[in-house]
């Protein structure tokens, strides 16, 4: 079980892809996209983790004591905030779609299916 968190990431990614492929409206699709995004968070944080190490913040414990990788944490941190804003952008696309076409189901929007 030494690689368990990596498999959690794969599981989240796979279940997100399944959700996107089988989604019947765009709100569900965007929710699945955020699930896929959280797979990258799990993977990045798992890669940077070190056993018996503290947070990479040395305000209360001395420099040189073991700490986890701050680079991946910084990546995840900015990505969560920007990801939330991008999700809002996608949802406003859905709002406009609902206004223009009256539906948010991908299947009914295909140009081929009259």
């Amino acid at each position, binding site marked *: 079980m*030494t*690689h*368990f*968190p*990596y*498999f959690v990431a*794969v599981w989240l990614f*796979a279940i997100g*892809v*399944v959700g996107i*492929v*089988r989604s019947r409206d765009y709100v569900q699709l965007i929710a699945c996209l955020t699930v896929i995004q959280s797979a990258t968070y799990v993977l990045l944080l*798992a*890669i*940077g*983790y*070190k*056993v018996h190490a503290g*947070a*990479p*913040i*040395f*305000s209360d414990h001395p*420099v*040189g004591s073991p*700490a*986890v*990788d*701050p*680079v*991946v*944490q*910084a990546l995840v*941190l*900015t*990505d*969560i*905030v*920007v990801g*939330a*804003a*991008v999700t*809002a*952008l996608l*949802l*406003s*696309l859905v*709002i*406009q779609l609902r*206004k*223009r076409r009256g539906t948010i189901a991908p*299947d009914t929007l295909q140009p081929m299916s009259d």
Partner: protein
Amino acid sequence: MTHRTRTTVLVFLLLLLVPLAVSGLTRLPAFGHYQGPYGDVINTITVHARHVTNMVSAVNYDIRGFDTLGEEFLLMSAVTGVAMLLRGGRGEATSARPTRVLRRRREGRSEAITGIGRLLAPITLLYGIYIIVHAQLTPGGGFQGGVIVFAAALLVYFGEGYASWRKTVRSTMLTLGETLGAAIYLCSGLYPLLSGAAFLQNTLPLGQIGTITSGGSIPIINLGVGCAVAAGFCSIALELLEETRLP
């Protein structure tokens, strides 16, 4: 493509992908046995090189500062995109009085909700500002603190209703905050160029470790990010809430 064929293709592709992913991941270093050099190097030298104690902030606003500039503009363009998309269908009517609100309860809000909102909103706002200004010392920073400030603004909406929310959170204030945040970031990137240093190089005096002004340009950039994140999220909420207003 029908649902059935799509699912069949998906199952086939997942059968292909999962063994590849598993064989790749099992060759990574085992969980908890991190081997990369960068994290350890940053943890060892940055406290004395930059006089900050929060390594994540040091990475975000100094060592990887150029990337965070990109993230900041990504956030800004997402906010601009939301505003453009929604105003495109609705018109530029944010100045209209939000008196007629569709399907939103205006009377009879529970006193408990208003009371809790009034109690919690200032505390949350203070906590958000605390998280922003202590970025280089303790866990937190502009991104996290900005979102907490946004939560305080939302508490005003829950407690007082939409009209009061619009009176408290002015849209000109939000535009100003968003622009100011990006401008602070850009200026602290361009300022080192005047003295012949590189873009975003930390040339300001570093100060004493553990104080609120330590870290040179890190607290300044962080303040800009906090400003931009709080204003950006409030703008997104404003644009989405405007959608429910009657035309």
